[in-house]
Protein backbone atom coordinates (compact mmCIF):
# COMPACT_ATOMS: atom_id res chain seq x y z
CA UNK A 1 0.00 0.00 0.00
CA UNK A 2 2.78 2.44 0.72
CA UNK A 3 4.21 2.14 -2.80
CA UNK A 4 0.75 3.31 -3.84
CA UNK A 5 1.16 6.29 -1.48
CA UNK A 6 4.62 7.07 -2.84
CA UNK A 7 3.37 7.00 -6.40
CA UNK A 8 0.28 9.00 -5.48
CA UNK A 9 2.41 11.81 -4.10
CA UNK A 10 4.66 11.78 -7.18
CA UNK A 11 1.63 11.70 -9.49
CA UNK A 12 0.22 14.78 -7.74
CA UNK A 13 3.60 16.54 -7.69
CA UNK A 14 3.94 16.04 -11.42
CA UNK A 15 0.63 17.82 -11.99
CA UNK A 16 0.61 20.54 -9.38
CA UNK A 17 3.11 23.41 -9.52
CA UNK A 18 1.98 24.71 -6.11
CA UNK A 19 2.57 21.32 -4.51
CA UNK A 20 5.99 21.22 -6.17
CA UNK A 21 6.85 24.56 -4.58
CA UNK A 22 5.64 23.35 -1.17
CA UNK A 23 7.65 20.15 -1.53
CA UNK A 24 10.83 21.95 -2.54
CA UNK A 25 10.43 24.52 0.25
CA UNK A 26 9.56 22.06 3.05
CA UNK A 27 9.27 18.45 1.97
CA UNK A 28 8.49 17.20 5.48
CA UNK A 29 5.24 19.14 5.59
CA UNK A 30 4.14 17.46 2.36
CA UNK A 31 5.40 13.98 3.26
CA UNK A 32 3.48 14.08 6.55
CA UNK A 33 0.25 13.64 4.60
CA UNK A 34 1.29 10.23 3.20
CA UNK A 35 1.60 6.84 4.88
CA UNK A 36 5.15 5.90 3.91
CA UNK A 37 7.75 3.46 5.14
CA UNK A 38 10.93 4.99 6.52
CA UNK A 39 12.75 3.94 3.37
CA UNK A 40 10.19 5.58 1.09
CA UNK A 41 10.14 8.69 3.25
CA UNK A 42 13.92 8.99 3.08
CA UNK A 43 14.04 8.32 -0.66
CA UNK A 44 11.52 11.10 -1.30
CA UNK A 45 13.16 13.50 1.16
CA UNK A 46 16.59 12.97 -0.39
CA UNK A 47 15.19 12.96 -3.92
CA UNK A 48 16.89 9.59 -4.35
CA UNK A 49 15.66 8.81 -7.85
CA UNK A 50 17.56 5.54 -8.02
CA UNK A 51 16.06 4.15 -4.82
CA UNK A 52 12.56 5.25 -5.83
CA UNK A 53 13.06 3.26 -9.02
CA UNK A 54 14.17 0.21 -7.02
CA UNK A 55 11.11 0.56 -4.76
CA UNK A 56 8.92 0.08 -7.82
CA UNK A 57 7.80 3.56 -8.84
CA UNK A 58 6.46 3.46 -12.40
CA UNK A 59 8.95 5.11 -14.77
CA UNK A 60 6.27 7.24 -16.36
CA UNK A 61 5.74 8.85 -12.97
CA UNK A 62 9.37 8.87 -11.86
CA UNK A 63 10.87 10.49 -14.96
CA UNK A 64 8.95 13.70 -14.33
CA UNK A 65 9.98 13.83 -10.67
CA UNK A 66 13.57 13.32 -11.84
CA UNK A 67 13.24 16.27 -14.20
CA UNK A 68 11.68 18.32 -11.39
CA UNK A 69 14.71 17.49 -9.25
CA UNK A 70 16.96 18.85 -11.98
CA UNK A 71 18.24 15.60 -13.48
CA UNK A 72 18.93 15.71 -17.20
CA UNK A 73 17.83 12.61 -19.13
CA UNK A 74 21.24 10.84 -19.11
CA UNK A 75 21.58 11.56 -15.37
CA UNK A 76 18.15 10.06 -14.74
CA UNK A 77 19.03 6.89 -16.63
CA UNK A 78 22.39 6.70 -14.84
CA UNK A 79 20.77 7.16 -11.41
CA UNK A 80 18.66 4.06 -12.05
CA UNK A 81 21.63 2.08 -13.34
CA UNK A 82 23.70 3.06 -10.29
CA UNK A 83 20.84 2.05 -8.00
CA UNK A 84 20.68 -1.38 -9.59
CA UNK A 85 24.32 -1.92 -8.63
CA UNK A 86 23.76 -0.69 -5.07
CA UNK A 87 20.37 -2.25 -4.29
CA UNK A 88 19.79 -5.06 -6.79
CA UNK A 89 16.77 -5.25 -9.06
CA UNK A 90 13.46 -3.45 -8.72
CA UNK A 91 11.44 -5.00 -5.90
CA UNK A 92 7.97 -4.85 -7.43
CA UNK A 93 5.95 -3.64 -10.39
CA UNK A 94 6.33 -3.55 -14.14
CA UNK A 95 9.55 -1.61 -14.27
CA UNK A 96 11.88 -4.43 -13.27
CA UNK A 97 14.89 -4.11 -15.50
CA UNK A 98 15.93 -6.77 -17.98
CA UNK A 99 19.63 -6.01 -18.20
CA UNK A 100 19.89 -2.35 -17.23
CA UNK A 101 22.07 -1.61 -20.20
CA UNK A 102 19.72 -0.12 -22.74
CA UNK A 103 21.23 1.81 -25.60
CA UNK A 104 21.48 5.37 -24.35
Amino acid at each position, binding site marked *: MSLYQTQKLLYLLNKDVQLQQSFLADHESVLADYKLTEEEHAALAKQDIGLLYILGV*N*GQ*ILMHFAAMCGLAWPEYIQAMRDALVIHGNVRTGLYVTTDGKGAV
Partner: protein
Amino acid sequence: MSLVFAGVCSHAPGITGRAHLADPDDKATLYSAFDDMRQALEDSKPDALIVIAAEHFANFFMNNMPAYCIGASDEYEGPIEDPQWLGIERRLIPGNPELSKRIIQSVLQDVDVAYAEEWKFDHGISVPLHFLTPKYDLDIIPVNINCQGPPLSPLHRAWAFGEALRKACDEAPERIAIVATGGISHWPATPDSGKINEAWDKAFLQRWCAGDKAAMLSYTDEEIWRDAGQGGFEIRAFIAISGATVGYTPRVHYYRPIPIFAVGCTTGWVDL
Protein backbone atom coordinates in the same frame (compact mmCIF):
# COMPACT_ATOMS: atom_id res chain seq x y z
CA MET B 1 -20.17 11.07 -43.08
CA SER B 2 -17.77 8.60 -41.65
CA LEU B 3 -14.21 7.92 -40.83
CA VAL B 4 -12.05 9.87 -43.26
CA PHE B 5 -8.60 9.08 -41.87
CA ALA B 6 -7.16 6.43 -39.59
CA GLY B 7 -3.50 6.29 -38.70
CA VAL B 8 -0.91 5.40 -36.11
CA CYS B 9 2.23 7.14 -34.96
CA SER B 10 4.77 7.19 -32.17
CA HIS B 11 4.47 9.65 -29.33
CA ALA B 12 7.71 9.23 -27.39
CA PRO B 13 8.65 12.42 -25.54
CA GLY B 14 12.24 12.19 -26.77
CA ILE B 15 11.04 12.83 -30.33
CA THR B 16 10.66 16.50 -29.42
CA GLY B 17 12.43 16.73 -26.05
CA ARG B 18 15.69 15.06 -27.04
CA ALA B 19 15.69 15.95 -30.74
CA HIS B 20 18.97 17.85 -30.28
CA LEU B 21 20.69 14.63 -29.18
CA ALA B 22 19.51 12.57 -32.17
CA ASP B 23 21.43 11.61 -35.25
CA PRO B 24 20.50 14.30 -37.83
CA ASP B 25 19.33 11.74 -40.39
CA ASP B 26 17.12 9.97 -37.84
CA LYS B 27 15.54 13.24 -36.85
CA ALA B 28 15.15 14.53 -40.41
CA THR B 29 13.58 11.36 -41.80
CA LEU B 30 11.17 10.97 -38.89
CA TYR B 31 10.12 14.60 -38.99
CA SER B 32 9.61 14.29 -42.73
CA ALA B 33 7.45 11.20 -42.14
CA PHE B 34 5.33 13.22 -39.71
CA ASP B 35 5.01 15.92 -42.40
CA ASP B 36 3.73 13.33 -44.85
CA MET B 37 1.24 12.08 -42.29
CA ARG B 38 0.06 15.63 -41.61
CA GLN B 39 -0.46 16.15 -45.33
CA ALA B 40 -2.48 12.93 -45.60
CA LEU B 41 -4.55 13.95 -42.59
CA GLU B 42 -5.17 17.43 -44.01
CA ASP B 43 -6.08 15.97 -47.40
CA SER B 44 -8.86 13.99 -45.71
CA LYS B 45 -10.43 17.34 -44.64
CA PRO B 46 -11.48 16.24 -41.16
CA ASP B 47 -13.89 18.20 -38.97
CA ALA B 48 -12.47 16.59 -35.83
CA LEU B 49 -9.61 14.34 -34.81
CA ILE B 50 -9.92 11.54 -32.28
CA VAL B 51 -6.54 10.81 -30.70
CA ILE B 52 -6.31 7.42 -29.03
CA ALA B 53 -3.34 7.54 -26.73
CA ALA B 54 -2.08 5.53 -23.87
CA GLU B 55 -1.68 8.31 -21.35
CA HIS B 56 0.93 8.30 -18.64
CA PHE B 57 -0.62 9.38 -15.35
CA ALA B 58 -1.52 12.89 -16.47
CA ASN B 59 -5.20 12.49 -15.62
CA PHE B 60 -5.75 8.98 -14.38
CA PHE B 61 -4.16 7.16 -11.47
CA MET B 62 -4.69 3.87 -9.71
CA ASN B 63 -7.31 5.43 -7.42
CA ASN B 64 -9.83 5.43 -10.25
CA MET B 65 -8.39 4.02 -13.45
CA PRO B 66 -10.68 3.66 -16.47
CA ALA B 67 -9.84 0.94 -18.96
CA TYR B 68 -11.19 3.24 -21.69
CA CYS B 69 -12.04 6.92 -21.46
CA ILE B 70 -13.13 9.60 -23.93
CA GLY B 71 -12.75 13.33 -23.33
CA ALA B 72 -15.75 15.65 -23.62
CA SER B 73 -14.45 19.14 -23.01
CA ASP B 74 -14.57 22.29 -25.10
CA GLU B 75 -10.86 22.82 -24.53
CA TYR B 76 -7.86 20.93 -23.26
CA GLU B 77 -4.52 22.07 -21.91
CA GLY B 78 -1.23 20.50 -22.76
CA PRO B 79 1.41 19.40 -22.53
CA ILE B 80 1.31 18.69 -18.82
CA GLU B 81 5.06 18.06 -18.87
CA ASP B 82 7.56 20.85 -18.41
CA PRO B 83 7.50 22.59 -21.82
CA GLN B 84 11.28 22.87 -21.91
CA TRP B 85 11.69 19.17 -21.06
CA LEU B 86 9.26 18.14 -23.80
CA GLY B 87 10.18 20.83 -26.32
CA ILE B 88 6.53 21.82 -26.83
CA GLU B 89 4.91 25.03 -25.59
CA ARG B 90 1.93 24.67 -23.27
CA ARG B 91 -1.33 25.83 -24.85
CA LEU B 92 -5.07 25.35 -25.05
CA ILE B 93 -6.34 22.91 -27.66
CA PRO B 94 -9.94 23.07 -28.93
CA GLY B 95 -12.41 20.28 -28.24
CA ASN B 96 -15.99 19.57 -29.28
CA PRO B 97 -18.05 18.39 -26.29
CA GLU B 98 -21.22 17.93 -28.32
CA LEU B 99 -19.54 15.60 -30.80
CA SER B 100 -17.66 13.87 -27.97
CA LYS B 101 -20.92 13.10 -26.18
CA ARG B 102 -22.51 11.68 -29.32
CA ILE B 103 -19.50 9.43 -29.81
CA ILE B 104 -19.49 8.38 -26.15
CA GLN B 105 -23.21 7.59 -26.27
CA SER B 106 -22.71 5.46 -29.35
CA VAL B 107 -19.64 3.63 -28.02
CA LEU B 108 -21.58 2.82 -24.83
CA GLN B 109 -23.80 0.55 -26.92
CA ASP B 110 -20.85 -1.85 -27.10
CA VAL B 111 -18.17 -0.83 -24.61
CA ASP B 112 -18.62 0.61 -21.11
CA VAL B 113 -16.36 3.58 -21.75
CA ALA B 114 -15.75 6.25 -19.11
CA TYR B 115 -15.82 9.92 -20.00
CA ALA B 116 -14.01 12.99 -18.68
CA GLU B 117 -14.94 16.65 -19.03
CA GLU B 118 -11.51 17.61 -17.73
CA TRP B 119 -8.39 16.34 -19.41
CA LYS B 120 -4.82 17.52 -19.67
CA PHE B 121 -2.74 16.23 -22.52
CA ASP B 122 0.61 14.60 -21.90
CA HIS B 123 3.22 13.68 -24.48
CA GLY B 124 1.01 10.83 -25.72
CA ILE B 125 -1.22 13.40 -27.41
CA SER B 126 0.95 16.54 -27.38
CA VAL B 127 3.82 15.07 -29.42
CA PRO B 128 1.56 13.82 -32.25
CA LEU B 129 -0.41 17.09 -32.33
CA HIS B 130 2.83 19.08 -32.48
CA PHE B 131 3.44 17.48 -35.87
CA LEU B 132 -0.05 16.69 -37.15
CA THR B 133 -2.05 19.80 -36.21
CA PRO B 134 0.67 22.41 -35.60
CA LYS B 135 -1.84 25.27 -35.87
CA TYR B 136 -4.05 23.63 -33.22
CA ASP B 137 -7.09 24.58 -35.27
CA LEU B 138 -8.79 21.17 -35.38
CA ASP B 139 -11.21 19.94 -32.69
CA ILE B 140 -9.56 17.14 -30.75
CA ILE B 141 -11.34 14.31 -28.95
CA PRO B 142 -8.88 12.58 -26.64
CA VAL B 143 -9.23 8.89 -25.91
CA ASN B 144 -7.27 6.88 -23.40
CA ILE B 145 -6.68 3.18 -23.22
CA ASN B 146 -5.05 2.23 -19.94
CA CYS B 147 -1.70 0.71 -20.90
CA GLN B 148 0.14 1.74 -17.73
CA GLY B 149 -1.49 0.49 -14.57
CA PRO B 150 -2.47 -3.21 -14.60
CA PRO B 151 -4.88 -4.91 -14.60
CA LEU B 152 -5.09 -3.90 -18.27
CA SER B 153 -7.98 -4.40 -20.65
CA PRO B 154 -7.51 -7.54 -22.80
CA LEU B 155 -6.39 -7.03 -26.39
CA HIS B 156 -9.69 -8.29 -27.79
CA ARG B 157 -11.46 -5.49 -25.94
CA ALA B 158 -9.16 -2.94 -27.58
CA TRP B 159 -10.30 -4.38 -30.91
CA ALA B 160 -13.95 -4.16 -29.83
CA PHE B 161 -13.37 -0.58 -28.68
CA GLY B 162 -12.03 0.26 -32.14
CA GLU B 163 -15.08 -1.32 -33.74
CA ALA B 164 -17.35 0.70 -31.45
CA LEU B 165 -15.52 3.92 -32.32
CA ARG B 166 -15.96 3.12 -36.01
CA LYS B 167 -19.70 2.67 -35.55
CA ALA B 168 -19.86 5.97 -33.68
CA CYS B 169 -17.99 7.75 -36.49
CA ASP B 170 -20.29 6.21 -39.10
CA GLU B 171 -23.30 7.61 -37.26
CA ALA B 172 -21.92 11.16 -37.12
CA PRO B 173 -22.45 13.64 -39.97
CA GLU B 174 -18.97 15.07 -39.40
CA ARG B 175 -15.82 13.97 -41.19
CA ILE B 176 -13.81 12.29 -38.46
CA ALA B 177 -10.17 11.28 -38.36
CA ILE B 178 -8.60 8.94 -35.82
CA VAL B 179 -4.94 8.73 -34.92
CA ALA B 180 -3.72 6.15 -32.42
CA THR B 181 -0.42 6.85 -30.77
CA GLY B 182 1.99 4.67 -28.93
CA GLY B 183 5.05 2.60 -29.13
CA ILE B 184 5.62 -0.87 -30.28
CA SER B 185 8.45 -2.47 -28.31
CA HIS B 186 10.14 -0.11 -25.88
CA TRP B 187 11.41 0.10 -22.34
CA PRO B 188 10.78 3.78 -21.65
CA ALA B 189 11.94 5.59 -18.55
CA THR B 190 13.99 2.63 -17.35
CA PRO B 191 17.69 1.79 -17.31
CA ASP B 192 16.90 -0.18 -20.49
CA SER B 193 15.77 3.00 -22.27
CA GLY B 194 16.82 2.85 -25.91
CA LYS B 195 16.42 -0.89 -26.16
CA ILE B 196 14.17 -1.73 -29.12
CA ASN B 197 13.19 -5.21 -30.31
CA GLU B 198 13.20 -4.50 -34.02
CA ALA B 199 12.31 -8.07 -35.01
CA TRP B 200 9.30 -8.05 -32.69
CA ASP B 201 8.23 -4.64 -34.00
CA LYS B 202 8.42 -5.78 -37.59
CA ALA B 203 6.47 -8.95 -36.86
CA PHE B 204 3.78 -6.91 -35.11
CA LEU B 205 3.60 -4.37 -37.93
CA GLN B 206 3.28 -7.19 -40.43
CA ARG B 207 0.26 -8.46 -38.50
CA TRP B 208 -1.10 -4.91 -38.32
CA CYS B 209 -0.70 -4.38 -42.08
CA ALA B 210 -2.39 -7.72 -42.77
CA GLY B 211 -5.28 -6.83 -40.45
CA ASP B 212 -4.63 -10.24 -38.93
CA LYS B 213 -6.99 -10.13 -35.97
CA ALA B 214 -6.18 -13.57 -34.60
CA ALA B 215 -2.43 -12.96 -34.74
CA MET B 216 -2.67 -9.50 -33.20
CA LEU B 217 -4.86 -10.69 -30.36
CA SER B 218 -2.74 -13.76 -29.66
CA TYR B 219 -0.10 -12.01 -27.55
CA THR B 220 -0.36 -12.41 -23.80
CA ASP B 221 0.62 -9.50 -21.58
CA GLU B 222 3.43 -11.66 -20.17
CA GLU B 223 4.83 -12.14 -23.68
CA ILE B 224 4.46 -8.47 -24.50
CA TRP B 225 6.25 -7.46 -21.30
CA ARG B 226 9.05 -9.97 -21.89
CA ASP B 227 9.61 -9.27 -25.59
CA ALA B 228 8.41 -5.70 -26.05
CA GLY B 229 8.86 -4.10 -22.64
CA GLN B 230 6.60 -1.96 -20.52
CA GLY B 231 5.87 0.24 -23.52
CA GLY B 232 4.72 -2.72 -25.60
CA PHE B 233 1.34 -2.67 -23.87
CA GLU B 234 0.56 0.33 -26.08
CA ILE B 235 -0.08 -1.99 -29.03
CA ARG B 236 -3.65 -1.68 -27.77
CA ALA B 237 -3.81 1.66 -29.60
CA PHE B 238 -2.69 0.06 -32.87
CA ILE B 239 -5.19 -2.77 -32.36
CA ALA B 240 -8.02 -0.29 -31.81
CA ILE B 241 -7.25 1.23 -35.23
CA SER B 242 -7.40 -2.24 -36.76
CA GLY B 243 -10.78 -2.81 -35.13
CA ALA B 244 -11.97 0.52 -36.54
CA THR B 245 -10.85 -0.19 -40.11
CA VAL B 246 -11.73 -3.82 -40.80
CA GLY B 247 -11.65 -4.53 -44.53
CA TYR B 248 -9.28 -1.71 -45.45
CA THR B 249 -5.54 -1.80 -46.07
CA PRO B 250 -3.17 -0.37 -43.46
CA ARG B 251 0.32 0.65 -44.56
CA VAL B 252 3.41 1.47 -42.55
CA HIS B 253 4.97 4.60 -44.04
CA TYR B 254 7.94 4.90 -41.70
CA TYR B 255 9.66 2.63 -39.24
CA ARG B 256 13.11 3.13 -37.81
CA PRO B 257 14.49 2.17 -34.40
CA ILE B 258 15.87 5.37 -32.88
CA PRO B 259 17.37 4.61 -29.45
CA ILE B 260 17.65 8.23 -28.28
CA PHE B 261 13.89 8.49 -28.84
CA ALA B 262 13.54 5.17 -26.96
CA VAL B 263 11.24 3.56 -29.51
CA GLY B 264 10.99 2.19 -33.04
CA CYS B 265 9.56 5.35 -34.53
CA THR B 266 6.55 4.64 -36.70
CA THR B 267 3.97 6.30 -38.88
CA GLY B 268 1.27 4.49 -40.78
CA TRP B 269 -2.23 4.93 -42.02
CA VAL B 270 -5.04 3.01 -43.57
CA ASP B 271 -6.17 3.33 -47.17
CA LEU B 272 -9.83 4.19 -46.59
